[in-house]
């Protein structure tokens, strides 16, 4: 590591302090406040009286007894697992494909980033139109080629809506997975493949015994980052289904929003938020473990 000149530690901390204070206010404070609020009776009356009395485990009991919470937990698990599986598999396949050298490869790879850069709520609105049961172009297409008779109720049937949300989120996440995995693939020395080919390894064998092991650190980072961003998704679901139909797409994120900002029971919202933090914290530990290798290299 190069040093940017030695200087008194105090002076350096002056450079760091503003960012630290800001992070304390915008990340640290919400974490603590959220935990406290989960034990408080925090409702619209609070804004008149200014009082939010502590009510022990009342909020926790109420939320945990609500079947909506259990459903949301389950939906979140399905949504996250399904999204990661789809994004990662397709992202990896595309990364491998675009590692070949052919005309326009770089250009097409760049343009494929677009879905990831467009605001998520905008993508969700566009998909809501595409998935419309009667006028959506997906059903028009499926019927035209004879794959379905009637329109599939993509967003209006409780048994299909969560799957639709997963499909849309896979679409959103493919570019990110592809770009990071593509970067990882470029780091693998080409000679290894030549050596493997000399040893008579067929492409699939080379992929399994060479590519996947060499790519493992990158795979870990991609999956953990994907988990972190998927588990808390709100925009996509609100704009696509608003948690419906019949709460079929409620997740921990949407329930937190609903309890706090629609039912205005911030204490109960804080309970679900705290559960969301706990789930994220488990994976934060994994992330830091995955990142430790980078720190070692003095990055």
């Amino acid at each position, binding site marked *: *590591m190069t040093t940017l000149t030695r200087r008194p530690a105090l002076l350096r901390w002056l450079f760091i302090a503003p960012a630290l204070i800001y992070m304390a206010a915008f990340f640290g404070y919400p974490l603590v406040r959220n935990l406290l609020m989960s034990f408080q009776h925090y409702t619209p009356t609070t804004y008149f009286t200014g009082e939010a009395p502590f009510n022990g485990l009342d909020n926790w009991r109420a939320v945990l007894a609500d079947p909506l919470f259990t459903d949301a937990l389950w939906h979140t698990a399905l949504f996250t697992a399904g999204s990661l599986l789809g994004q990662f598999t397709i992202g990896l396949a595309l990364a491998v494909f675009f590692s070949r050298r052919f005309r326009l490869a770089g250009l097409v790879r760049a343009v494929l980033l677009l879905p990831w850069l467009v605001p998520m709520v905008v993508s969700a609105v566009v998909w809501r139109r595409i998935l419309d049961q009667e006028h959506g172009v997906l059903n028009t297409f499926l019927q035209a080629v004879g794959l379905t008779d009637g329109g599939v109720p993509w967003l209006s049937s409780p048994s299909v809506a969560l799957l639709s949300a997963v499909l849309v989120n896979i679409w959103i996440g493919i570019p990110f997975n592809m770009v990071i995995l593509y970067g990882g693939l470029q780091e693998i020395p080409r000679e290894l493949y030549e050596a493997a080919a000399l040893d008579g390894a067929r492409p699939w064998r080379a992929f399994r015994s060479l590519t996947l092991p060499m790519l493992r650190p990158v795979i870990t980072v991609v999956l953990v980052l994907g988990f972190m961003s998927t588990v808390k998704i709100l925009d996509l679901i609100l704009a696509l289904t608003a948690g419906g139909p019949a709460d079929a797409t409620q997740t921990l994120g949407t329930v937190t929003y609903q309890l706090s900002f629609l039912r205005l029971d*911030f204490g109960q919202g804080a309970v679900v938020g705290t559960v969301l933090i706990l789930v994220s914290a488990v*994976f934060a530990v994994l992330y830091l473990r995955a990142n430790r290798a980078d720190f070692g290299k003095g990055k």
Partner: protein
Amino acid sequence: MLPTPARRLRGAWNTAAALLILAVLLFPVYWMLNTALQPASGIAVDWFPSDPGLTSFRLALESQGRSMLTSLAVALGAVAVCLALAAPAAYGLAQSALRGGRSVVFTTLITQMVPGIVIANALYSAYAELGLVNSYLGLILADASLGLPFSIVLLRAFMVSLPGEVIEAALVDGANRFTAFVRIVLPMSRNALITAGLFTFLFAWSDFMFALTLNTTDDVKPVTLGIYQFVGAHVSDWGAVMATAVLSAVPAAVLLVVAQKYIAAGIAGGSVK
């Protein structure tokens, strides 16, 4: 190696496959544009805009033009706040042997994992007490948090590799620490600053959650919130909704064309969204 006919053929097949993948994955983007270009297309939409018109875009600008300006102002404000905090912090952290520096970098990484809705939950009550609900300043400060950890990590990784001798020389010539930072470190970090700024802009421009939760009136309404409400209210006029969608995707498209190299650098530099 000279391209043999077989090799060339395989290349052509690959290009064809790539274009097919592109067509499938970008179909929603095409459909957004196609719907926007077919005015009064309440229900039936043709596969191609045979008779394209800009009526929908006029409607979109009329109803959402103000929101787009709000988004622009908020996103630029967030970039300013974020870079003003991140650049000095990254500089301070880029130097070795700072006691506690490593834990700050760790903390920075962890903050990227705090769910936004949790932040909004606590921030709302704090904002209510401070009078920051429905204010540009409140939204700018909240949106700056979307890019800050990312910017610190990215800028620090860049500044670590700056040659210390140049700054050393400036200090010998009588510059103080702060002027050395402003006159030498910042200009040398230009590309990394642009990358961090672009991503912060995109994060803030895309923000929906803070826009939704920290605003109870229409005083401060970014375009993400605008299109969300638009869908609720005017779901019959999909042409105008899609035109708004197209307009709100413009920054992404522009950056993809103009700033491709920075986008690639940002994603490679440990990007998180």
